């Protein structure tokens, strides 16, 4: 057991750090320094910058465009991105459908999709939840009826994050209705932009932005060649993906950014002749969250290290989702408290009226109430832990 960085690791860290400093386009750097939130264009731009450098998918196998870094280098790279407060590229292609295609896709599918996931040329979204299939995902009803070389899709997906910006959707649909409900589910890839019969309708969340969409399918034809895995084998693929999803979804890097922002706000906020950061009650809350963040960083490292040894992210990653999102929400709550009256600041306030974070904190605080719900609600994570790790009995 050894957590120290070798001289080579430290050299790598310096190299990454100075590259990020040079590579960040000026408008992004400005937001990174001022605690603003990034829009879809900035996220795409940063995606391109990382891709041009060959650093967009460090966790992918080298032959598919990964960097070939070991777990230490990946950890260092992730920490440096957080440190520089860069935009985070969308996870749906890079972290979710990409690794899944590498694991389960045909050669044709890999050649067709992976390069454009890497380049960011095609953006993805996830079609899992439906109005009547949330935590009980296996009860999903989007119908896919076989007709020649196509499936014909009818039904609705919801909570499809960022579908209005996406080119493709990976989705779970029902191709059979006999046997257990998990057995009739298949995994398809659909072209959102050019398939007739697919309609995307964004809706506002508490954050005041259209972060999620309803996606409707009316006689939408998807080629059978776009099925991943066997017909009726979609549930197993979805479960494998949930493991990948949970490791990143704890938002541990996000919490680090928020902690830094909270302290910056507190430092700049006068209280009498001192600042909010000098207030003992506030400091204690911030310190507790910072310490908990350290503990979660270590848990994350242990999961990464296990993955390095070839263990797929298993149910243990549920812990990261559970504790990570709780921490993230607590940090955003502290950020709100740090703002005082400015906590009511909202999107659209004129530039000169408010500091950038006085517009964005409340929006993100509200939006992130979703973090304990998305990716399998925290209650579902507890069910997974109880059943699969602790092996507690069912009724």
């Amino acid at each position, binding site marked *: 057991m050894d957590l120290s960085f070798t001289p080579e690791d430290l050299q790598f860290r310096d190299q990454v750090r100075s590259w990020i400093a040079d590579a960040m386009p000026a408008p992004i750097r400005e937001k990174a320094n001022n605690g603003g939130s990034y829009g879809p264009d900035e996220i795409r731009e940063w995606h391109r910058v990382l891709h041009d450098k060959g650093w967009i998918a460090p966790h992918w196998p080298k032959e598919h465009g990964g960097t070939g870094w070991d777990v230490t280098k990946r950890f260092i790279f992730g920490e440096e991105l957080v440190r520089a407060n860069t935009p985070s590229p969308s996870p749906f292609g890079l972290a979710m459908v990409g690794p899944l295609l590498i694991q389960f896709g045909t050669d044709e599918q890999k050649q067709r999709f992976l390069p454009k996931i890497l380049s960011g040329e095609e953006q993805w979204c996830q079609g899992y939840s439906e109005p009547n299939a949330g935590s009980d995902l296996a009860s999903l009803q989007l119908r896919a009826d076989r007709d020649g070389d196509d499936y014909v899709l009818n039904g609705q997906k919801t909570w499809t994050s960022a579908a209005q910006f996406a080119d493709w959707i990976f989705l779970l649909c029902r191709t059979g209705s006999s046997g257990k409900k998990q057995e009739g589910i298949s995994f398809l890839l659909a072209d959102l932009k050019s398939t007739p019969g697919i309609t995307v309708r964004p809706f506002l969340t508490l954050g005041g932005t259209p972060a999620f969409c309803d996606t409707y399918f009316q006689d939408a034809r998807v080629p059978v060649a776009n099925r991943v895995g066997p017909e009726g084998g979609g549930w197993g693929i979805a479960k494998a993906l949930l493991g990948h999803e949970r490791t990143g979804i704890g938002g541990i890097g996000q919490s680090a950014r928020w902690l830094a922002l909270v302290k910056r706000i507190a430092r700049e906020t006068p209280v009498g002749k001192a600042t909010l950061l000098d207030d003992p009650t506030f400091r204690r809350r911030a310190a507790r969250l910072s310490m908990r963040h350290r503990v979660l960083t270590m848990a994350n490292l*242990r999961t990464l*290290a296990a993955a390095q040894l070839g263990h797929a992210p298993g149910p243990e990653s549920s812990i990261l989702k559970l504790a990570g999102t709780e921490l993230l929400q607590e940090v955003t709550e502290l950020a709100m408290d740090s703002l005082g009256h400015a906590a009511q600041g909202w999107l659209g306030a004129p530039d000169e009226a408010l500091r950038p974070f006085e517009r964005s904190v409340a929006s993100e605080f509200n939006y992130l109430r979703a973090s304990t719900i998305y990716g399998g609600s925290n209650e579902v994570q507890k069910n997974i832990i*109880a059943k699969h790790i602790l092996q*507690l009995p069912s*009724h």
Partner: protein
Amino acid sequence: MNFALSKQQQMIVDSVATFVRDDSPVERFRELRSSERGWDSAVWRKMGDYGWLGIAFPEEHGGIDGSFVDMALILEQLGRSLVPEPYIPSVVLAGGLVERLGSADQKRDLLQPMLAGETSLALAYVERQSRYQVADCLTRAEATGEGFRLSGEKVWVLNGHAADTLIVSARTSGDQLDRAGVSLFTIDPNTTGVRRVAVPGMDGQRTAIVTLDGVIVGGDALLGPLGGAVEHLEWAVDRGAAAACAEGQGELRELLGRTLEYLKQREQFGVKIGSFQALQHRAAEMFAEVELCKGAMLLAAIKADAEDDNERRAEISAAKVQLADGGWFVQENAIQLHGGIGITDEQDVGLFFKRLRVLASLFGDADYHVDRYQELPAFAAE
């Protein structure tokens, strides 16, 4: 960066686990807790023979040249059955300081026999008013020409009732709260003027109140720099905190395991109570906290050997708070989920509960570590 145990570490873990299972089940602790000494010198000797006491010490002083992590892995196993021999007080606290500060003679006379399990040591650094500030020291040592004369009172001296040698902090200059002016002395408890009163603890272990009334020692009793003990005491107490996190991990694993076993076996309303979702979720939360404690404990153990004081402090404080808060969640719910049986002395869960609660208060409680953490560069730099 690598999290896997080495082959040698795995061997040590296996051998301590076997010892704990076969030779030191919780029943042995139960018997010893009502004895005068509270632990067994024959077992201590055995632990010395196996090399477990000297694991993290250099070979030239009877050690095995291992790391703090090796020691933490041993402590975790010892915690699984509440092994009462004085590992933390004698090896981690006092042993660590003698190794760090001692002269060749002091190491030969104090360290070698202790690491062999022939003797035990204790560190007397707490006073009634000092709480967690090791510099807050009223005990005084006056120079006498050939040596020192010590007077004062030390409390909550872990293993102080049984130790063959006491290491005592005393002020050689300055005022009560000054960081400078505190020194360490090695004292034979049989010296005239030393009085020890054994105090039973809620965890079944013993501490002592040690009063020094004009105790005369020679100049060679000084351990480390005259007047410069505080930073070394802080180092030792930090390693005590890391050791508490390591031992605590063993107790937490037992509490979780025993609670899960109970949930799978106890029936009410005609079903196993572990099938109730309210209890399943509680168990899942307990599991998460135990895992988080484990990672934090490993990081604290790694950083216990760090050159940089602040790096060490940040991780050890984070781990100690995780033990105190996350560990507490596990403790209180282990009792709660056992129901009425959980509050009987007959059930082992209560014994683990009590030991963990003592560990939470030793070497700085959560509030102390939260406040200390705020003053570290790591917090300011975030």
